[in-house]
């Protein structure tokens, strides 16, 4: 008896299957899909690289071409959204795109290249030009000089001034 009741209930319910992929799938507001870096906003600070749990985001400095590359490999991404949460410039965000099958491995990479900034004192590259510009713009006039040199040079300069102060 029960078996027939269940069947009747089922018939009343009708078809519930969705016609995907012949019709597009509606995705919810909050879906965490493929992350995309906006190359105009990214300053190459590497905050996203620091927080990324599966190392989908990596950073590489190339001294020959004097460029910093932020590399996003979707093949490793777990769509946790930590990068989006951390990015100070709102440059990386998770889109609603979820159909990520690709024909070649290269299609799964997004690379953002940024010009490296060299320390005016020692000549070593330590950050990107865009990031230094943004930092300098945000700082008051008197602190700008200290911001444009690399941390190591800044240390020695500060030590130098301090030793003068003590005398």
């Amino acid at each position, binding site marked *: 008896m*029960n078996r027939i009741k269940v069947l009747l209930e089922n018939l009343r319910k009708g078809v519930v299957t969705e016609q995907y992929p012949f019709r597009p799938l509606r995705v919810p507001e909050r879906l965490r899909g493929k992350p995309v870096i906006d190359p105009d906003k990214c300053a190459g600070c590497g905050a996203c690289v620091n927080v990324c*749990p599966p190392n989908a985001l990596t950073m590489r400095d190339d001294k020959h071409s004097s460029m910093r590359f932020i590399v996003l490999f979707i093949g490793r991404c777990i769509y946790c959204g930590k990068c989006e949460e951390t990015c100070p410039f709102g440059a990386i965000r998770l889109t609603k795109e979820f159909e990520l099958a690709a024909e070649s491995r290269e299609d799964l990479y997004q690379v953002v290249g940024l010009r490296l900034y060299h320390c005016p004192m020692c000549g070593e590259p330590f950050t990107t030009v865009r990031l230094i510009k943004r930092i300098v713009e945000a700082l008051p006039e008197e602190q700008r000089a200290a911001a444009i040199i690399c941390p190591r040079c800044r240390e020695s300069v500060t030590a130098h001034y301090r030793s003068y102060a003590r005398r």
Partner: protein
Amino acid sequence: MRPRNKCELMTNLRRFGEPRLRGKYLFISRIKSGRLKDLVDYLHWRLGGYYSTSIGVDERPLDGYFHVYHVFVLEKYGVYVLVDLPANPGHPVVESITPIVPAANWAEREIMDFIGIKFRAHPEPHRLILPDDWPDNVYPLRKDFPYDEKLPTSDKIAKLVRESPSDTWIAEDSEDHTAIPVGPYHPALHEPEYFELFVEGEKIVDARYKGFMVHRGIEKIAESRLTYNQVPFIAERICGICGFTHSTAYCQAVEEAARIDVPERAEYIRSILLEIERIHSHFLWMGVAFHLLGYDTGFMIMWRLRESIMDLAEKLTGSRKMYGANIVGGIRDKWDIKEEKVALINDTLGKIREEYLKYVPKIISMEEIKKRTRGVGILSRSDARKYSVLGPHARASGINTDVRRYRPYAAYKYVDVEIPVEDDGDIYARIIIRHEEIIASIDLIHRLLDNIPRTHLHADTDYIPERRYGIGCTEAPRGEDLHFVITGKDNKLYRWRPRAPTYNNLLSVPTMLRGEHLADAPIIIASIDPCFSCTDHIVVVDLRSGRRRPLRTGGLVGGR
């Protein structure tokens, strides 16, 4: 006589060693020689506690020793007992407790594989997790083994492939056209498990299990590369069904260790998401159970119902399964459950409950279902205690245990949780337990939503002190999920060991299979809800003819 309180317990334990109470953790160190077995017997069999798991830690950089911690849960006294066995690095041997508590079998073998501590008098001192071609005397969880080390390939691999039993199966099966085994990995379902059943005619005489084919080494990654707040996302991916419970257990372990107070709102949101996860997991299990019983209409109904829960989870968290909500100290900002979402949850769950009650009580009172499941795959209460089985599996065998009630965490502190318990210990009891749990969970979410307080979502976690111990326990859909952590330097863990409930539950499967009919094997194995996977891929060895053939549920329950 059982001690009445913690004080008396401490006095009694002084007979065996030196007990130290640190909050909820009762360390027993310097066990007197020859007294370990008596201590374990006392804790597991006489005190009403149960053995939970064992953890091996390479603490040579800290105090010069390897350590084994056997964790016993004494719910009555509200403590975790950690039996601390140091092992000399020159000659790491400690006494095995498996002869007293069979549940410790796998955990001890895992420590043998990963840390290289030998257990004296262990009944099966073979490899459990490491593959057969792994070189001797290389122990991956020791601190001097780098996480990105690649070992040279061994000659043994070639040999393994040649000796792979599947070659012979194909040859033997060609006469009677039984299906070809596709290795121990199932192509359709997503977890490799490998059972060997020994049968005489249709009766199962013995069963063996081989697993751990997909051990991913995430403990090592977490200890070497990941920071505290990265681990929850990796922990969530331990399981494809109950991931959130793992990330919660991990976060709770670190919060315990660092004494972080989680804001109440975060606790409520965690509990709500955990219950949503439990409902979807039980729906999934019920569907698969009906499928294995040959009732595919039931399977379709359960999975259709489950879909509305998955959609709800997706709307709340942005993902069907990987909620990604937990961080150490609370919940991430965007995962807040706001007013309009409260209405959405109440509404959806109301509909699901209504529809669920329309179908499932009818299904489980069907004679066909009862005949297939009553008196089948019985696990007696004493056997359940022997293997320390957990969760619904234990509750179906008459053991009243539930982390949510007896060691309340998250928001379960503030509400009453209904715990159904059945005494029969058969598959039908397991179905009933999960059926009642689904309804209890739906009601629980409604109650949690009514009382959700307005506080912050996460606490500040600027500093986590070094070398603190923490245990985080949650009631996963399959039972107690335990995460053990030792905090370390540089924003990283020193040791992390997750223990999923199936680890304990699987050990009891051979016992349940013995003496049963072959046709019932798939549902017996599935009845523990073994993180549902390749459980339908079983190899049958006929003792009379010595022939091996794969067992496929399709062939047993439905038409081919």
